[in-house]
């Protein structure tokens, strides 16, 4: 039980040993507290405006465009460089060296001199260099399945095939979005005190949101330049159904382990939100109706979700069946009995699979924005504030913490090959995290500290024989345990900081870690392409910048039940029109 400032009674938060298993994290869904949605709500309530001061792209699709977001106090510009990429050079892997389009989010409005500097660096990505005026660096590739089809049909004056479009869901997919000081860009410390960037990953989300606007303009522009007399723009309702695809590989998985304090902040915010809803004594007729409607929309979302991966197919079948059960339960349950949301939750815990439970955890938040949206301000973490080791802690207390947090790991026989079947290392070629089978002892030297369970078991073993009294004495004698000791002390304060599962076992699916992180971004339609990388779509069905003034900002993550009625007629933003 934990206290929550905004609720009078203690809230029952789910225990970390329930929430932080890989199987459950691999079943997380986007929610009201996802970073894309936090961004769009802010854009709406702060009435940001958008302009496109530059769009110089030729018929081959080569050139530069600038999209500027004007907040009440600042401006941020996506600078996009479009490229005519030879098909054989197109790869989403981090080892690629050329892309269909490359981007940076510029802090302010770039001058021509800035554009010239960026043109010499941004298209090179990791091989180039940006400065503290740039906040992110990213790139995207066209969908081979869809791009030419959409350009050709629009040029001929027709709309593209709706089924084909739905099957892919995007025209370009980003393959990396770097922020936080990478490749010379501004550190997070430079922008974290700006309210618009207080929540995590807002720079990256803004960059992707503007990238989507650019991609849609680009495809229409190429159709127009190909056949100026016959070309038509995309139908606005169809246009909205395009998100930005994304390929995410192993490089992102260690993030959750490398940022324990941040991981806790994300999970704790969502768990607090769920607990607040469960604590409500009653449900109004409006809330029940809104909830039933969002569940119906979630069914459409699950129906439209495509994957060929065997594990994901099983999960999708679970999710679809669970949503049918949930609808039946909503229709049949007694909503007038006390604490109806909590009773529905308990029913789900007893009845649904992990997919269904986690989907419900997200859906329960939907009709309760006023109750939970404030939690978005609690999703950051001053990691430095929890980083120092408390050396005065008695070793007996550290032992108790290890037992409490890593008890699951103390029961594993770490000498068994399957317990340590995998090994995380960083490759020389791209300096990116990789995962290997632990068959070659040579790689052991290079193992990254991404296996807290095993490390905690080793810590436990050495604590047992240690005669000193304090943690300070222990880590001085055992510097090899300093890393895991720090983790244990962080997790003692921030219980969701640690994954309570084996991150190097034979059964590890890195895609579970990827999905947990991407769900907090707000990603939908996870489509694993192996056990190590996953495709997603971002901002699918979201309003475009020019649609946010007159339409809702946060009602798009589940597809509409009927053909969209609130879609504004297409009024693409023109040059210099805020």
């Amino acid at each position, binding site marked *: 039980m934990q206290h929550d400032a905004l609720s009078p009674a203690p809230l029952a938060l789910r225990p970390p040993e329930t929430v932080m298993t890989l199987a459950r994290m691999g079943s997380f869904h986007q929610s009201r507290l996802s970073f894309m949605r936090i961004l769009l709500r802010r854009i709406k309530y702060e009435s940001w405006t958008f302009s496109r001061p530059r769009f110089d792209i030729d018929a081959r699709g080569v050139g530069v465009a600038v999209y500027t977001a004007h907040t009440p106090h600042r401006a941020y510009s996506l600078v996009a460089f479009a490229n005519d990429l030879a098909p054989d050079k197109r790869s989403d892997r981090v080892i690629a060296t050329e892309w269909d389009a490359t981007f940076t989010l510029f802090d302010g409005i770039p001058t021509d001199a800035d554009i010239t500097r960026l043109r010499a660096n941004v298209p090179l990505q990791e091989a180039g260099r940006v400065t503290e005026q740039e906040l992110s660096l990213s790139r995207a590739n066209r969908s081979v399945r869809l791009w030419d089809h959409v350009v050709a049909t629009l040029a001929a004056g027709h709309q593209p095939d709706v089924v084909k479009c739905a099957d892919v869901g995007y025209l370009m997919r980003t393959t990396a979005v770097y922020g936080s000081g*990478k490749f010379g860009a501004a*550190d997070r410390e430079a922008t974290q005190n700006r309210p618009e960037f207080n929540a995590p990953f807002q720079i990256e989300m803004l960059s992707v949101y503007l990238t989507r606007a650019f991609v849609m303009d680009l495809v229409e522009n190429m159709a127009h330049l190909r056949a100026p007399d016959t070309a038509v723009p995309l139908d606005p309702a169809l246009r909205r159904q395009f998100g930005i695809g994304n390929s995410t590989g192993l490089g992102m998985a260690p993030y959750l382990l490398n940022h324990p304090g941040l991981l806790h902040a994300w999970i704790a915010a969502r768990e607090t939100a769920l607990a607040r809803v469960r604590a409500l004594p009653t449900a109004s007729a409006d809330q029940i109706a809104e909830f039933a409607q969002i569940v119906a929309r979630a069914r459409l979302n699950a129906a439209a979700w495509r994957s060929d991966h065997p594990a994901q197919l099983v999960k999708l079948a679970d999710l679809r069946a669970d949503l049918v059960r949930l609808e039946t339960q909503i229709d049949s349950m007694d909503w007038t009995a006390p604490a109806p949301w909590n009773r529905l939750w308990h029913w789900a815990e007893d009845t649904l699979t992990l997919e269904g439970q986690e989907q419900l955890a997200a859906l329960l938040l939907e009709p309760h924005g006023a109750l939970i949206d404030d939690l978005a301000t609690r999703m950051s973490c001053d990691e430095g504030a929890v980083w120092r080791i408390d050396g005065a802690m008695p070793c007996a207390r550290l032992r108790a913490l290890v037992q409490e947090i890593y008890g699951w790991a103390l029961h594993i026989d770490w000498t068994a090959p399957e317990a340590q079947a995998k090994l995380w290392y*960083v490759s020389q070629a791209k300096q990116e995290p990789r995962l290997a089978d632990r068959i070659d002892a040579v790689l052991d030297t290079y193992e990254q500290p991404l296996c807290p369970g095993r490390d905690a078991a080793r810590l436990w073993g050495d604590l047992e024989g240690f005669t000193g009294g304090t943690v300070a004495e222990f*880590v*001085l004698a055992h*510097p090899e*345990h300093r890393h895991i000791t720090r983790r244990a002390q962080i997790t003692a304060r921030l219980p969701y900081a640690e994954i309570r599962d084996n991150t190097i076992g034979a059964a590890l699916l890195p895609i579970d870690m990827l999905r947990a992180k991407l769900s907090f971004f707000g990603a939908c339609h996870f489509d694993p*392409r192996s056990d*190590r*990388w996953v495709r997603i779509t971002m901002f699918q069905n979201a309003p475009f910048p020019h649609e946010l003034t007159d339409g809702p900002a946060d009602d798009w993550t589940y597809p509409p039940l009927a053909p969209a009625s609130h879609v504004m007629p297409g009024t693409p933003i023109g040059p210099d029109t805020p």
Partner: protein
Amino acid sequence: MSWSLNEIGSLTRKAARGAGFSWGMAEEAGRAARWLAGVGLPGPEALADLLEATDGMAHGMLCPSDPTTKDWRASGGMLCPIAAGTALCDMAGALAQARTLREVVQPLLLVPFVADAAGVSGRAQALTWPDAAFLFTKDLRGAIITTTPLARVVHLTQDAPTGLPPLACQLRYDLCPDVAARLTLLAERTYAPETDASRLGGAGAGLSDND
């Protein structure tokens, strides 16, 4: 070249690991170098020198042999500022009495730890050696006359040296290419040499990504 502090922290942490630090100690080294760069002091340079001077030496030879005494020495002669600094910080609550640190390599690297110890304990801490003085109270003050490869004696006291300028925070650091190259050389020891098989398997290429 202008580096972000994130880049400085990441490179120095890897370099320390490459030079044989445990991961937990490498994290401390990276954080210290980044902290110093963030106040315009040559932390990355000091760390490069330290790592080269102590490359491959065991922690047990470089750390304070008996931290319960007032006089800290390392059994191997040279006292490592990261090992001594973490030990100081870990026992920050008990730092009421003055301490003398002997034969400290790159003493500048002690500074971030003493600053943290002052913050944790809420007690003023002063750190001095012949070419430098620092004072950590509610604000951070200090200066170095010149960088010191090895200080025979470093004093940690609660006596406040006067007239020290405040440390000014900055978000960028100009790291000279030569030092960056030396740190990179050490950092590269943490990267596993790659084969074609590991390149394909390690990231799990799976299905085609060009569709």
